[in-house]
């Protein structure tokens, strides 16, 4: 596939009743199989940007949009959200709001049913999706009886079962405890192994640094940085300017460099940082 998975060019979006655009001339692209992390302060337009990719903005959430969004080479504005959902899966922030059915298997089958997947195929896909998110054995339970992390994984499973090629997660872990966060990120790692393209919005810089290939930093509707995650998170001054922060180990090395006038290589992983720090003392 020569085409990019997601290609956003000159995207500007303004909500109705608002003067200033929430997204200003945004340009980026994501290759197939890549995972993109979007970080930025609250109100930077992260969610709006994500919703532009599957067409929720501006087709369901109205506003004035300029520029083009292409998914697998197809112009999103010429399609509709329901049609896009075959290609783009979207996981929202609140786990509970995404559930509408009586049992877990029906919840997963719901999206597939809308796509007209035959019943035999459904059963196979339900099993697959539950295995991917680690919820096997819960088929007959009520979604409301699950914990937050499990509910969010269920929401992911029901999107996975629709077999999209691109997965967008909008702050999927913000309502969850650390264990729930790990559960969701483990699923994200699995997706990468399946060759899916992903976009994840989150405030967890440590986890973003560990799991994402590229990171996009958004502030007040503008792209401030768009580079491989290593490069973004080692640019600590820039992150501080935007009231963001790098992973703690990177912050530590940066502060050490600053205080003792050293030029240690900044790293985002704990193991590498230890190595760098130890070698400085040899």
């Amino acid at each position, binding site marked *: 596939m020569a085409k990019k998975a997601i290609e956003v060019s000159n995207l500007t979006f303004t909500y109705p009743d608002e003067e200033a655009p929430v997204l200003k001339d945004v340009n980026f692209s994501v290759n197939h199989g890549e995972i993109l992390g979007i970080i930025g302060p609250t109100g930077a337009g992260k969610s709006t940007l994500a919703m532009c990719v599957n067409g929720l903005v501006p087709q369901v959430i109205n506003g004035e949009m300029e520029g083009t969004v292409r998914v697998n080479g197809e112009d999103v504005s010429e399609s509709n959200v*329901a049609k896009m959902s*075959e290609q783009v899966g979207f996981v*929202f922030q609140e786990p509970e709001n995404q559930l509408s*059915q009586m049992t877990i*298997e029906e919840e997963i089958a*719901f*999206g597939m049913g*809308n796509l*007209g997947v035959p019943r035999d195929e459904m059963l196979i896909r339900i099993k697959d999706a539950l295995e991917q998110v680690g919820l096997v054995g819960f088929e007959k339970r009520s979604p409301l009886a699950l914990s937050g992390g499990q509910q969010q994984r269920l929401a992911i499973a029901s*999107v996975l079962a629709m077999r999209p090629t691109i997965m967008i997660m909008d702050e999927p872990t913000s309502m969850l405890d650390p264990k729930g966060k790990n559960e969701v990120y483990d699923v994200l790692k699995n997706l990468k192994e399946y060759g899916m393209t992903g976009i994840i919005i989150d405030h967890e810089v440590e986890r973003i640094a560990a799991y994402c290939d590229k990171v996009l930093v958004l502030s007040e509707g503008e792209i401030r940085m768009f580079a491989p995650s290593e490069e973004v998170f080692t640019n600590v001054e820039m992150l501080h300017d935007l009231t963001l922060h790098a992973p703690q180990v990177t912050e530590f090395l940066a502060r050490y460099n600053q205080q003792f006038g050293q030029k240690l290589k900044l790293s985002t992983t704990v193991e590498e940082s230890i190595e760098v720090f130890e070698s400085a003392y040899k």
Partner: protein
Amino acid sequence: MNSLYMPKDSLIHSLDPRTKMIFVIFVVISSFILNDPALQLLLLVALFPLVLLAKVVKPYLVSIQFLLLFAVLIMTVHGIYNPIGVTPVFEIFGGLTFKYESMVYASVMSFRILVIGTAAVLFVMTTHPSDMASALVKWKVPHSFAFILLSTFQIIPIIAREAKIVMEAQQARCLDVKGSIIQRVKNLVPMFAPLFIITFMKVHQLSYVLECRAFSRKGTKTSLRETRIGSLDYSFLIGMLAILAFEIYVKLFAMGSLHLTTDALLTYSLIGTWIVFGFMIVKFLYKQLQGKIGGAN
């Protein structure tokens, strides 16, 4: 599970939801065709084997209690005060007389409630809500309508949970929930206004989610739950048709020669409902007493 559905393995459960819906309609029609207390009592008794067959006797009796309450009230009040009554049947203390015509009227009405209630309870208890939704879709009911029906089961416990959160939050802001009745009624506003807003926001968000799950996509939709009309359903339907034909025959040709409704039947059914009602009250009082004693320990 938030519905009354009782997952059991029975003949009635394995029937197609559409057959059961037709069954409910059939019972409603029958209860109007058989405009006679004796025949309706017969219908009520005839429905009981089905309840037995569906293995839901105990939950059925619990839910039918409330309908019985209506029956007792209607039979007593109408029996005494309905002006259509002329022939006195029997007198209780204080010169209150039960009259034949008004008792017939009251019995027909209350038995009708019981018969229709029984059929409805039977349907609800033996049909999984999702099955009902998918059966409705097969009847060309719009997909969104079936979804609305189904999502009520899901949204009620969520709203209940939110209501608790709102109440606790407002209590933390010094909302007096233990004041006088008037104060409590006033407090409904700070309770319900946020609850409504929260619910609307949740539903709004859900609409985005549904859109992302291709809900508005045109074309055929499939369902995980399979409902199929089998030989059992056909025999059931034919049975219903036969009974319906017989009822119409009875209604048209044999009504004049049938005199099943007697003073004794009316009196006994009235006293019967009283006795059952009395049992209910005794049981209720016993439970209250038990709760009091349990609380003291």
